[in-house]
């Protein structure tokens, strides 16, 4: 048997995302079987509720030394990934990242592969798309932490490059409960649109509410964001207030393709409550695919370098669309979609894809 250690937030404030990791993995195993090339694959889940590099290090070390895993996967937060990378070479174990989205992680170890996205990657196409929609002046509002800063920087590079101006940039503290003053300021700034990034979860609700309540929507100020803000599991709570929000992202649960139908059905079964399915599941699903390919290539033997080598350049049709592993950066190259929140035929809120930007690599690494 080959053991795979999965580290993710299975409890605590990000339990939903961890649950999606699990759903993605279980969906993969339900559809493709629990063994690869005659090697049974065993998954060991370990909980890491919040960003905590010390704990991440301890868990990773234990998985490697005690549980003898040949592969590490998962990891929701960047610092946790950074705490794990230093041990990979000596442990002879590859790390397949299902989420942690800072570009720089890939540079820390040659044994890291990533199947999720970076904010540079998802946000960059939004610059051009905004111009195409007649938007000239934008104010950016992001949560003040790593991913937020990445999103801001990506937009500030892409939008002017396409011919627009960023009139103002606001970074708001992570623990902001009342967004009314911030959106009032956005309104006062005179921009045509606001570009926003908030981590998925409870605060997005208040933000979108304040967007409506402070009359920005009525005043015709457009709302652009990275797809984190409208993850599918938050949409029912956001309700009608979210209709018409424009986001760019690598995956929508409603993506229309036969591969995705199969995936969504399996993943929904795995997660239990269909409303909880969201983007981390796809990173996990494709991550499992990559790990399977690695196991296949090494015949179940522990050889991290060979395993990583085997997936460089690997291309396949994922439920999110065509993807490949960039041989140079080991980060996933994929299509980024422009979406708008809408209601589908059955009255469910979805991210409706309206435009696609294929073959996006991570611009964050070629800065």
């Amino acid at each position, binding site marked *: 048997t080959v053991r795979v250690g999965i580290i993710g937030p*299975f409890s605590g404030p990000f339990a939903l995302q961890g649950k999606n990791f699990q759903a993605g993995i279980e969906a993969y195993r339900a559809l493709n079987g629990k063994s690869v090339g005659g090697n049974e694959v065993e998954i060991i889940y370990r909980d890491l509720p919040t960003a905590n590099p010390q704990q991440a290090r301890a868990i990773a070390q*234990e998985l490697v*030394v005690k549980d003898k895993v040949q592969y590490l996967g998962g990891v929701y937060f960047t610092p946790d990934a950074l705490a794990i990378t230093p041990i990979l070479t000596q*442990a002879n174990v590859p790390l397949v990242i299902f989420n942690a989205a800072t570009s720089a992680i890939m540079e820390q170890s040659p044994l890291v592969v990533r199947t999720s996205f970076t904010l540079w990657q998802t946000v960059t196409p939004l610059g051009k798309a905004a111009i195409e929609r007649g938007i000239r002046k934008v104010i950016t509002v992001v949560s003040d*932490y*790593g991913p937020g800063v990445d999103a801001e920087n990506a937009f500030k590079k892409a939008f002017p490059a396409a011919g627009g101006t960023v009139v103002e940039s606001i970074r708001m503290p992570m623990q902001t409960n009342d967004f009314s003053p911030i959106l009032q300021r956005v309104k006062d700034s005179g921009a045509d649109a606001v570009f926003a990034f908030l981590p998925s979860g409870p605060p997005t609700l208040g933000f979108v509410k304040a967007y409506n309540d402070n009359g920005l929507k009525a005043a015709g100020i457009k709302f652009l964001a990275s797809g984190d803000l409208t993850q599918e599991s938050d949409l029912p709570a956001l309700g009608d207030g979210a209709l018409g929000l424009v986001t760019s992202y690598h995956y929508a649960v409603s993506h229309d393709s036969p591969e995705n139908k199969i995936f969504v059905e399996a993943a929904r079964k795995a997660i239990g409550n269909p409303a909880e399915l969201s983007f981390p599941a796809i990173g996990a699903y494709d991550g499992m695919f990559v790990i399977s390919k690695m196991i296949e290539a090494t015949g179940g033997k522990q050889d991290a370098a060979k395993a990583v080598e085997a997936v460089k350049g690997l291309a396949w049709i994922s439920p999110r669309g065509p993807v490949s592993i960039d041989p140079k950066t080991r980060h996933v190259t994929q299509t980024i979609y422009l979406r708008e929140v809408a209601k589908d035929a059955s009255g469910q809120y979805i991210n409706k894809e309206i435009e696609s930007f294929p073959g996006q690599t991570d611009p964050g690494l070629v800065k």
Partner: protein
Amino acid sequence: MSETRPLAASGRRWPRDVIGLAAIALAGGAGYVLFPDSLAFLTRIISIALLVLSLDLLIGYCGIATLGQSALYGAGAYAAGIAAVNGLTDPVALIAVGALAGGVAGLLMGAVLLRAHGLPQLVLSIAFVQLFHEMANKAASITGGSDGLYGIAPGPLFGLFAFDLYGKTAFFAGLGLLLLVFAALSFVVRSPFGMTCRGIKEDPLRIRAMGIGVRPTLIKMFALSGAVAGMGGALGAIATQVVGLDSVSFELSANALVMLVLGGFGSLYGALIGTVIFLGVEHEVSAINPFHWMTLVGVMLIAVVLFAPRGLYGVMTDAVARWRGRP
């Protein structure tokens, strides 16, 4: 909390101290033998234990309400981390840097916290740690912000033992540090200074009427506590090679408090026991059921309050006393 035994029972205490230290060393050794594959975890316990000990100095010995102790831990961690990134690689020097930074942060925190008592003081401590957190987040160019400070590569300990995957070096370095600190603190809490602090805890006005200045004494304790916490943080930074914002967070402070109360405050052993039990249980239970372990930890905390209100160390001493009392 009151133990009916006089505090500094006169007579010679050092045999007890030696036994205590030996017990800790033995427990450390047992940890090494029994869980050779979890050394990184054991090192984390030691690092946090230093934080909890430092918290005990303030809460258990001086009655200072604080939920901001991780500001001191984080100061040590970041100072050591930044020094390491900038080329200081000797682990012993890094620990010293951590202690120094923690001590300075402790002085600062003391200056702020001693302006109030009780609940308002608790709030000051929260505000203090939150400000530290914000600063670490804002100063991303030197601290790495929310992505964490990485690229810490400590050199070999004493130039001989390199830090490795198995975490052996880090573990033994940590254990040695813990023993040193523990020995020093056992001495300190029974010095006149320690006695004065206990007096302050109970009635500062009385201490003043005895002619002893309360503020200077407490500030001293803050610096000491900061140094201990800072060493814990530095140890964590060296062992993990990454420093995250979590090391200056309210959550870490609150967890440390829970561990301390769990073990029993006002006793150095209580601090250690609380840390080991809490982290150990959390680690084991969350490995068994990564999805719903929180409820079990919650139940454990409630059970401790109901059945061992003086903390686990209190239960142990009671049991020993009863056993001794039996003819």
